[in-house]
């Protein structure tokens, strides 16, 4: 890239909408019946282990990582779909209420789009019923320019790109293509006029050719209505096309977060670099691929939790730089290395590149 990079401007970020601080979610370990009788205990899985992220107004934040890194669990906690073991989630400064009523009010503002539209839609409901469900739970808003339920459903469908909306009212999900189904899911979220959309792998179950259309739709919502979008994905190429900021998670922690241009073009954490290496690119150039299985959250390694797979440790470079003992023995937190760009790696303290 020859053209000069605009300086990432932190002040550009809007006001915080959703703030997550020190989030921890554990899943109880399970053992078989007989092992239980013998007094054995399953080990708990620390799915999320101290995550702090902020979603600003009108921003697209990508939460990226492998399966089992805790990205979906973080998204579900933000939705109030599970109760965290520690940490706070605030919406516009207010802590998330745990009461039924409190959550209902919150979910009017924060809506979720799931990965598999076929599983998310009730096969025995018509598209109209599916989209209207949110309004029936939250009530049709009153006021001077009040609209009827039908008007709101029609508006949500056409905002989601299903036009003319009347044509879809009486159809069932099986009569639509995968892309159209995902649009119905998005219409169901839009109908209550949310300010935040949490999208968990919104395009990974779709054909490559229709992915772009769905992403373009999400981008339009952000521009038109200043909706903030948290997009959970394993695909950094997708993050490059849509995200303003990227947070990379590994084993329940955010290991790098910052402006998308910085994180994706000049990664500072060896794990981010490894993830970038597996984005398929033309040429079949031999790039080192991280070996081994996705890590197990029931057995979190000491020190930097990435060290057993870290190429900097494996190549002996960490030892030469004199940080090996800390890599394998001392836990570390995110540290700011540039405005708005935080990394959790001992290399950055030495000014070294991964």
């Amino acid at each position, binding site marked *: *890239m020859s*053209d000069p990079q605009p300086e990432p401007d932190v002040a550009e970020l809007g006001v915080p909408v959703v703030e997550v601080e020190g989030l921890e979610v554990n899943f109880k370990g399970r053992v078989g019946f007989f092992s239980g009788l013998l007094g054995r205990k399953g080990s708990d899985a620390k799915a999320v282990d101290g995550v702090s992220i902020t979603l600003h107004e009108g921003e697209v934040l990508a939460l990226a990582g*492998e*399966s089992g890194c805790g990205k979906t669990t973080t998204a579900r906690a933000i939705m109030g779909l599970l109760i965290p073991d520690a940490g706070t989630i605030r919406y516009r400064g207010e802590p998330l209420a745990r009461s039924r009523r409190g959550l209902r009010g919150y979910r009017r503002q924060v809506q979720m789009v799931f990965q598999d539209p076929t599983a998310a839609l009730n096969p025995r409901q018509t598209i109209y019923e599916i989209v209207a469900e949110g309004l029936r739970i939250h009530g049709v808003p009153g006021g001077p320019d009040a609209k009827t339920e039908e008007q709101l459903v029609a508006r949500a469908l056409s905002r989601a790109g299903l036009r003319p909306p009347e044509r879809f009212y009486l159809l069932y999900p099986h009569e639509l*293509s*995968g*892309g*159209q189904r995902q649009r119905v899911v998005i219409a169901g979220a839009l109908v209550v006029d949310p300010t935040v959309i949490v999208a968990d792998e919104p395009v990974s179950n779709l*054909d*490559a*050719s*229709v*992915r*772009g*259309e*769905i*992403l*373009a739709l999400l*981008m339009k919502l952000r521009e038109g209505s200043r909706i903030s979008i948290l997009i959970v994905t*394993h*695909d*950094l*190429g997708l993050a*490059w*096309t*849509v995200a303003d900021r990227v947070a990379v998670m590994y084993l329940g922690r955010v290991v790098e977060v910052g402006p*998308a*241009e910085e994180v*994706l*073009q000049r990664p500072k954490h060896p794990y981010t670099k*490894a*993830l*970038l*290496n*597996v*984005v*398929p*690119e*033309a*040429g*079949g150039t031999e790039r080192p*691929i*991280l*070996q081994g*299985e*996705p890590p197990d959250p029931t057995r979190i390694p000491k020190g930097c939790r990435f060290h057993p797979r870290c190429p900097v440790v494996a190549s002996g470079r960490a030892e030469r730089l004199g940080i090996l003992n800390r890599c394998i023995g001392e836990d570390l937190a995110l540290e700011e290395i540039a405005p708005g760009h935080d990394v959790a790696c001992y290399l950055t303290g030495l000014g070294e590149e991964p």
Partner: protein
Amino acid sequence: MSVLSVRDLVVEYQTTGGGVPAVRGVDLEVDRGEVLGLAGESGCGKSTIAGAILRLLPAKTKITGRIELDGNDILELTPGKLRAVRWTAGSIVFQGAMHAMNPVQRIGEQIMEPILVHGQSGEREARIRAGTLLEQVGLPTRRLDDYPHELSGGQKQRIMIAMALACSPSLIVADEPTTALDVMVQAQVLQLLRTLQHDLGLALLFITHDLSVLVEVADRLAIMYAGKIVEQGGAEAVFHTPAHPYTKALAAAFPAIGDMRFRGRPSGLGGDPPDPQQIPSGCPFHPRCAEVTPACPSVTPELWTAGPARLAACVHASGAPALEGVSR
């Protein structure tokens, strides 16, 4: 010398609602030691081709044309002969490795089964062969005694590859072999396939909707739309300088990180793939095409020359006959 040669293949599924033409005249050629990538949206007919090559389609399906695999005329084989050809001449790796294995049989026995069925060796040698195969796909021999549930998704997909290699076939058909896997594991499996293909000189037909994966592994690419091949050529050339507007749209779905043209501008293809029972007239892609001309709804394009070793079924191709209202 080609391992697989498909000529004018037409496949029509028989349903209660009438015949569904899934493949409408396809020619393919895969040479020894070559990887041919076959790409397209769901429903374009790419998996049907995989099924037709090993005759795995429902019994009533109408198949015409000619499929020659390792010198065998597949469509004319008797059931007994067909069994002998499956696994030894050509084998297949399916998408859902998790569902393709018998959950109550040990891994070793499952890998040994085709070797024993084909009478290639006795029980003892078959077990040794199974152990070697496991090592080839990067797993320790002791895994032979594991059950499928003891393995991760990536390991199961490795086992599927080991099974496909069991009888040393000339051709492996890989139908979306990495789609259900996690990013890092997907990269590992691709690397393994590439190494094995190279070391064993295999012919590989690699089917996926993910064009970016194909560029990494394939020598040549064939792009399918509505049951026909619409573009064909060297993998890099097809991906980087697509000649067919459909290929352009598919390639744009995989942005290169760092490429400012994609930043903040996701692009995709509007509309839906055509219903195989109501394929649009002329060029079937014209209702969704960004470069449609007045001629497109009436001219049925053939695979015209579109550069050196390149074919494209588009009126914009350099070798297309001159048509009214079409500029190049």
